[in-house]
């Protein structure tokens, strides 16, 4: 194996990807964008329907009478409450209550679950499953996945699927058929808009792609790469492993690790569930004592930004895509945190960022300053702490 892998949609995406800006994702190549500029792709997410190849997601099927036992032990959420046809977003931690990875967990039937993750997780699952009656099957390569995101996404699916998708509630899933091909559709996504993820046997990938493109024509469907998705996910306040936090598995030092509380995932830590789960004692302690860091939104104040550029005779320069870079955040002269991803929001017309802030600076409304580069000089623009997400249309969960 001396080449990166192609996803099951490569035959299509290869012809569509004009800038040839392939990005690496978990050992696969995916399109950064299909068009030269990200504008139309971003607006497809927010205004019509965006078709995104998310096949590289790691996927595992966990089946057996002890499947729930394993998952309850590994993830922080209460799996006994997860109903058939429901999906949970969850993180999982090490013994110290620090995040290893995050993903979605779907309950497909009484004893079958599908877990997605960003990093390979087979070994961690297997290590925790010793003595349990269950089977863990990695289906990363055999299952293709498409994310269809945007306000028109339900209309596209209704046109081509056997059963209407209107009945799928937020974070639920249904089995469906499309031209005789069985698919599973979950109302999930990574954009904070109305959206669905479609799970397909890899051998059926191309006909499903074609059917969606055909059905979506009248609704403004557009193949969209991961760069536009990156802008949308920041607006939605969604973080990404390795950009916004370091897996505790990969961290060299403790300071690189994050707990779910620090990442704003306190709501996914179900300390009221019975029994032991990995990281529980540490998480309970942290919940009691409070966290010293928190992931928050940061909105750069336009007037202040404009003034910095005006000083050198320039109009404010706007980012053309999300940047995954660490930018210092200060209160007065003191650094009290850092930004991990920043983007210009074309919809909100704001410069926004995901920021890791130290206590007590993470309270909403706190006035801070964030580094911006103005004509090769590092400057600090005034910015305000806000709660996440930056953007949440009322149709996202309706």
């Amino acid at each position, binding site marked *: 194996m001396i080449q990166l892998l192609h996803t099951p949609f490569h035959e299509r995406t290869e012809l569509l990807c004009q800038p040839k800006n392939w990005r690496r994702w*978990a*050992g696969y190549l995916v399109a950064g964008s299909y068009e030269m500029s990200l504008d139309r792709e971003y607006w497809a997410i927010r205004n019509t329907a965006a078709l995104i190849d998310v096949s590289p997601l790691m996927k595992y099927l966990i089946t057996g009478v002890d499947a729930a036992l394993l998952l309850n032990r590994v993830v922080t959420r209460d799996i006994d409450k997860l109903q058939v046809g429901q999906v949970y977003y969850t993180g999982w931690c090490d013994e110290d209550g620090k995040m290893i990875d995050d993903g979605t967990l779907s309950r497909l039937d009484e004893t079958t679950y599908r877990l997605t993750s960003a990093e*390979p997780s087979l*070994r961690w699952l297997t290590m925790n499953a010793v003595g349990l009656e269950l089977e863990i099957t990695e289906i990363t390569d055999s299952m293709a996945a498409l994310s269809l995101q945007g306000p028109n996404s339900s209309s596209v699916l209704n046109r081509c699927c056997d059963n209407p998708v209107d009945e799928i509630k937020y974070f639920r899933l249904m089995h469906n058929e499309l031209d005789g091909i069985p698919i599973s559709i979950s109302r999930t996504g990574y954009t904070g808009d109305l959206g669905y993820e479609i799970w397909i046997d890899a051998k059926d990938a191309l006909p499903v792609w074609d059917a969606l493109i055909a059905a979506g024509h009248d609704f403004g469907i557009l193949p969209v790469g991961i760069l536009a998705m990156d802008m949308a996910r920041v607006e939605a306040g969604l973080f990404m492993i390795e950009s916004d936090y370091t897996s505790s598995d990969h961290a060299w030092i403790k300071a690189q690790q994050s707990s779910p509380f620090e990442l704003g995932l306190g709501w996914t830590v179900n300390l009221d569930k019975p029994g032991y789960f990995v990281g529980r004692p540490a998480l309970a302690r942290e919940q009691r004592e409070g966290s010293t860091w928190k992931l928050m939104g940061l909105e750069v104040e336009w007037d202040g930004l404009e003034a910095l550029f005006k000083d050198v005779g320039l109009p404010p320069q706007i980012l053309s895509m999300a940047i995954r870079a660490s930018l210092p955040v200060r209160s007065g002269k003191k650094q009290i945190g850092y930004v991990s991803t920043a983007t210009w929001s074309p919809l909100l017309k704001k410069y926004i960022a995901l920021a890791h802030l130290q206590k007590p600076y993470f309270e909403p409304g706190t006035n801070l300053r964030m580094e911006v580069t103005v004509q090769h000089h590092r400057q600090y623009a005034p910015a305000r702490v806000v709660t996440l997400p930056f953007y949440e249309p009322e149709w996202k969960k309706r």
Partner: protein
Amino acid sequence: MTVNHYDAIVIGGGHNGLVAAAYLARAGKKVVVLERREIVGGAAVTEEIIPGFKFTEFSYVVSLLRPEIIRELELPKHGLKILPLPSTFAPMDNGDYLGLWDDPDLTRRELYRHSPLDAEAYDAYSRAMGRAAKAIKPLISLIPPDPSSLHPRDLMGLLKLGQYAAGLSEKELYMIAKLVTQSAGDMLEEWFETDVLLGTKAASGVVGTLLGPRSAGTAYVLLHHYMGEIDGAFRAWGFAKGGTGGVSGAIANAALALGAEIRVGSSVAQVIVKKGRAAGVALDNGDELQSKVVFSAADPKRTFLQFVDPKYFPDEFIQSIKNFRTLGSSGKLNLALSELPDFTALPGEGPLHRGAISISPSLDYIERAYDEAKYGQFSRRPFIDMIIPSAIDPDMAPPGQHVASCFIQYAPYDLEGGWDDAKKEAFAETVISTLEIYAPNIRRTIVGKQVITPVDIERIAGITGGNIFHGEMLLNQIFFLRPVAGWADFRTPLRGYYLAASGAHPGGGVMGAAGKLSVQEALKDGLL
């Protein structure tokens, strides 16, 4: 006569001796290096044994050369280039192969073919080893503390060691505890299940020892080899431009530029002792040179049993040096090739030729190879670590032709009945017929060869016993025990006499650390 008066004399022009001389010159001292051979470099030499074909004769990869030495001696200015050696390719008996490429995604996917669990364990293992190496590596640059001493210097060292330990997590401490006690085989089997992966990793745990992967203590050697991999962007694993002789050449040039003198063809017979102090040397040809201090950058046995009258050392010290394990277990076959070897598992010219090629199909294979050596035979099916220098640096061979460097284990110094030409030839034949299993064209591409046994290492490079590291790198011979407990700080019981080569802390490998650290210590003693 003033021409033969020096501040310091360095015996031995191996890379450590050259580093020592460069640092002495840099400190403003008048220094001469005396090398018995006509070329410098010791075990780090490149020689054109067959016209047009340059053999990196002994040492062939560079992983541990200290970055601060490269910077301080400005080695790049003096010609040092360390080229990437990005991958490891291990052909298997069933015709398949394992490729560990220089990209984590590619390596994971490749391992996945063999075992999905190993694919993930590999990353976790690398990180665990990386963390352990990171924890131990700073100690290499420290003078090793002697826990039995109350000398403030040792206490400071222990304190620093303690601080490092305190900075480690419990998991890392356990990992280190295992590394220093387990066999390489046992430790690796806790992580992996794929035979060829186990074999390939285990092999690096036994390099330079006369032990098998199932022998206790070999896990540490794995870590030692990992140290080269944590210099991050520095990319320490590599092949030196011009072969490992390129490293010695650059250090020699740096030493000369700093004002050191290098004399080749100058074999030292004796260290001259005056008033209980090393005061110079006498050469084989009778010439005498005077100096304030003497550094021996030769192996410990010659340094203490041959160059100096034993009466200057305590009996116990002499006994410990005699017990120092220095018998070689590795050999080399250097080949001149008319074309690249073609591996049936991955035919044609490819990335495998630019990396290491490891014949190590399983742990049992390595252990069996050891079994034969244990009873005085060379392995019938040896572990072979091959690189093709000319595929990395085309200047190593005539255009279109190639050189191959095959490191071989096991080949015991104490071969039953002793080594002779017939046995050397049989040994070479064993290696070629082993390679032939995986690359059938190899035999007909050979246009010349050089066979090196431990006895040849002793004869040519001047390393007593022929051990590649001047003495095995096992736990009872490293840190504060190298070469002898209580004498791990480069000083010796003879005042003004210092050990400056691989037999001293931190040990073997082309790293230059002993050369540099010994000078650093000697300068504190006020004799210079």
